[in-house]
């Protein structure tokens, strides 16, 4: 029924051990990040209080790109070494990455309103983030477009790699397009030089988001493993008319 390659008991045991630690780390880091970000750090001399938006916008954007690289990485492993766990990891990563990209866009537009007076600014970075969201949605749609999940994972893995190769080209062309049509936006998203007080909450939040990603990733992978076993058992029933 379950071929020895596709039965990740070893992974499940490992996941059980490290998940509580990751959960704890996430809560601690998040608490510290919020404390330093919202209460203990002074407003930025230039952007004033809105710098606090940066503490969630920039980590979300970092995570959006980090998750896409993780997605492309696990897809490469799945295609080259055909390890079924990599397929599950990719399938589990995509929704998390899409969520972070969405958050980056939302916080970006909430940042844009006070800064430039409009909800959406065709700033090069925000536009690239929007395109990245489409790449995520494309992956998720293709992943679930087939009846056979194996088929879905394989073709979406190829799409993820094609997308990954195209990200720099898209970034380059969007930057070119942006400079062509609009002078560089007044306030650089990341700020000219990152002052020490700002750096601390920024890094704390980034670390918190990363551990949060690992936490949800483990949960989603275990879900995929369980779903795989359910399909295998149903197949088993169908194939041999199992007398339970």
């Amino acid at each position: 029924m379950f071929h020895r390659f596709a039965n990740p008991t070893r992974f499940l045991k490992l996941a059980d051990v490290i998940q509580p630690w990751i959960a704890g780390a996430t809560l601690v880091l998040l608490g510290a990040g919020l404390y330093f970000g919202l209460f203990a750090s002074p407003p930025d001399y230039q952007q004033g209080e809105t710098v606090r938006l940066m503490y969630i916008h920039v980590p979300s954007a970092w995570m959006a790109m980090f998750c896409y690289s993780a997605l492309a990485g696990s897809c490469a492993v799945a295609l080259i070494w055909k390890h079924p766990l990599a397929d599950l990891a990719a399938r589990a990563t995509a929704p998390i990455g899409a969520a972070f990209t969405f958050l980056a866009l939302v916080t970006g537009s909430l940042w844009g309103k006070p800064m430039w007076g409009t909800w959406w600014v065709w700033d090069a970075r925000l536009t690239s983030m929007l395109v990245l969201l489409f790449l995520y949605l494309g992956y998720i749609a293709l992943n679930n477009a087939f009846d056979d999940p194996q088929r879905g994972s394989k073709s979406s893995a190829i799409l993820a790699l094609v997308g990954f190769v195209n990200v720099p080209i898209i970034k380059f062309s969007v930057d070119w397009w942006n400079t062509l049509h609009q002078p560089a936006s007044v306030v650089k998203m990341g700020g000219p030089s990152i002052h020490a007080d700002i750096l601390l909450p920024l890094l704390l939040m980034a670390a918190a988001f990363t551990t949060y990603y690992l936490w949800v990733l483990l949960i989603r992978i275990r879900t995929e493993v369980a779903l795989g076993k359910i399909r295998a058992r149903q197949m088993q029933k169908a194939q041999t008319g199992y007398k339970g």
Partner: protein
Amino acid sequence: MTGFMLILRRDLHLAMRQGMDSLMVVMFFVIAVVLFPFGVGPESNILARIAPGVIWVAALLAAMLSLERLFQTDYEDGSLELLALQPIALEITVMAKVVAHWLTTGLPLIVAAPLLAVLMNLPDEGFVILIVALVLGTPTLSLIGAIGAALILGSRRGGILLSLLVLPLYIPVLIFGVSAVDAVISGFEAKAQLLILGGIFFAALPLCPWVGAAALRQALD
């Protein structure tokens, strides 16, 4: 005659016999562009301003429309399986299909583009550069589209899915295609844009058939 020519000839033969495909693509292209004056208003200076962008976006959508059929009919009647079992590399088969797709969609779009440029009141100096940019850009659209067409084989709702997969990858071609025409219209040189368009094309030329063949192989697995 080489395998490549055989497959190309057969696909063109099929397209000719079914005739309507190229015509429908051009009809969609024309209608899509003609809609804009109704939406944006007939002032010629506004139309002229957005003409390159509108023509390019419409061409891109028209080229994408016929992509779904690229492998679908052969996949359904078993020809694709058989083509994969011929002593010809699958990559060559994919390349032949891409060339056939370009000849039946890309070329008619390029032929129809000047007419639409007139409709959209494109300044005179923009005509030649529009053709040149389209000639450099549309093959890339077919190449990248072939990957999308191979990926959605056997999926539910292939057509819509194909556009979601392929359009983000079309953005660079769209940006440089339109900016080439804009540059010439506003009196600048468009050499940089054309060079980049050519660069993207020559990168896509070997990579897309290779990835497309890999996608076909796992679709037939």
